[in-house]
């Protein structure tokens, strides 16, 4: 499960900053809020944060400049950029500078919370050999899978498909992308074959509440795992 993480919010609008902070604290994270770019650059240098929520429109140096300085200094902290402009340029510019995700204001808090969880999970997945998704654990080194504590038998192809989906929880992964990630060199894999692997995965995972959605005509999406509430 996700451990308690430290999050830095850099946002000059006090109301929005406090709102985000309260939501993330409600999720069990430790949150710091800063209103200025320079402050954020210094803060990130002095302390380690698990991730950063960075507004583009800051007084003084803007969010892009903060991001540029962080990355130039070798800081790989995952960054979620918030912008009030929705121009595609902003998004591309942010991603080019090394942002990990992007949200346009205003946004729904549950969505922000989900993005934050995804970023934290991604950064933690990169640091360890174990991928954890609710009751599902994939040990990528030992190539052993567990579901609700019991060993889970996965064929090589099923494992590969699951790994692709796990890397992008709550994001649609197109069939083409899955084929590219799964097919061996020079091998032809049809979309139908992917459907077969996914349906086998579903049969194995759904009883434990791990859901793979079909997005008609596009691909699949591994849903975020939601623990059943107590009493249900």
């Amino acid at each position, binding site marked *: 499960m996700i451990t308690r993480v430290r999050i830095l919010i850099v946002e000059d609008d006090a109301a929005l900053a406090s709102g985000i902070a309260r939501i993330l604290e409600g999720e069990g994270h430790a949150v710091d809020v800063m209103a200025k770019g320079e402050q954020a650059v210094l803060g990130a240098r002095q302390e380690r944060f698990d991730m950063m929520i960075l507004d583009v429109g800051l007084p003084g140096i803007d969010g892009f400049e903060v991001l540029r300085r962080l990355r130039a200094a070798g800081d790989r902290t995952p960054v979620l950029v918030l912008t009030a402009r929705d121009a*595609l340029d902003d998004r591309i510019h942010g991603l080019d500078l090394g942002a990990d995700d992007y949200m346009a*204001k*205003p946004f*729904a808090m549950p969505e922000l919370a989900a993005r934050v969880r995804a970023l934290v999970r991604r950064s933690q997945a990169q640091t360890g050999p174990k991928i954890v998704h609710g009751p599902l654990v994939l040990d990528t080194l030992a190539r052993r899978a567990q579901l609700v504590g019991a060993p889970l038998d996965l064929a090589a192809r099923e494992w590969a498909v699951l790994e692709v989906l796990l890397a992008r929880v709550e994001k649609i992964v197109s069939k083409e992308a899955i084929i590219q990630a799964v097919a061996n060199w020079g091998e032809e894999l049809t979309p139908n074959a992917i459907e077969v692997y996914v349906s086998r995965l579903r049969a194995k995972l759904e009883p434990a509440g791990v859901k793979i959605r079909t997005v008609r*005509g596009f691909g699949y999406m591994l849903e975020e795992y939601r623990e059943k509430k107590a009493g249900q």
Partner: protein
Amino acid sequence: MDVGIALSERIRSSGEEVAFDLPGAAEQVLRTDKYDTIYYHLRKPDGSALAGDPGLPPVPKGLVPEDGVIAYDGVYRGQPIRAIALLVPCGGQICTVQVAETTNKRRKLARNIVLSSLVPELLITLATLALVWFGVKRGLAPLEDLSNEIRARSARDLRPIDPGHAPEEAAPLVGALNQLFGQVAEASSNQQRFLANAAHQLRTPLAGLQAHTEIALAQSETSLAQGMPEDIRAQLEQMHRATIRTARLANQLLALARSEPGGYRADAFAPINLRAVVEEVADEWVHRALAKEIDLGFELAAVQIQGDAVLLREALGNLIHNALEYSSPSGRVTVRTGMRNDHPFLEVEDDGPGIPPAEREQVLERFYRVNGTAGTGSGLGLSIVREIAAAHRAQIDIGSGEGARGCKVGLTFPHG
């Protein structure tokens, strides 16, 4: 004339007696001509005939001799003739020598003269006309191209005209036009900056408001259990819905301003894959569809158009938003891109109540809402789509979905 002089020399006069003597052979020679017949007539001073063809028309009265010669036209034996009359002294008096010839040669000559001068002149004239026409056409062609280029522009296209394409004489005009284009473009980018700032100023506090209403709403669940009145919870929900609507309205007004002529620069148009535009926003919409248990599906073929990705995403967003808004739970919404009848298209189909045919024009108007619908729309969505379609010279069609149910809104773009 020569004939006349030769004849006059043959007139002998002795006292009152005037005689003419012309040998037959000589007369033959005199009268011989390839084309014309020659006539002559000699009159004595008293007017009586001396020799020749007495029927030749007499000298018209009133003509004055020039160097002793009178030239005149007449008709003899039904043919036009040219005649001269020489006044020759004979026996102390004046005899008249008339010589006439048919005008065949003259006419032929005249015709030859006319032909030989007219035809080249005509040719020269034609050649000159052709040259002038060609020259003017050629000279004006760059101007024509320039007019066509300007005419073909949309109101949004403010790129300067390439002065290399325009004729030298039009350079000042092109310069002035480019200056104007520059000023309009500058004004338009100022407006863009203003919009970007306005967006920031509006959206940030709205995001804050939305955050706090959502927190309050989440907390109210526990407060409710602790005895918070039910109507406070209801009011919080109202506030939350109003906030979402305000945020959406702010976004839409900005989108509308951006999609209008002058709201953006046509030179920002670039080759864009419609399929990629859809795929980029698919995540966001799939989540919203899932929340309503709507099956949002895609039938996407890659197709390239010239366009503005931000505007296209906005149009697509409005179409999908409407489809999700008006579909019943567990409904079905499909987004399609591809080529149809040689034209790139983008369409969104739902299986909701649809738009009655009578209202399909009106829904494109701003703030128009279909009668009896329960949605929370502002009535701006489709008018934004219409503006964006216009910006891309795309045709917008509203129809029914599969089996004459639901609604299908499509944009058909000009050739890719």
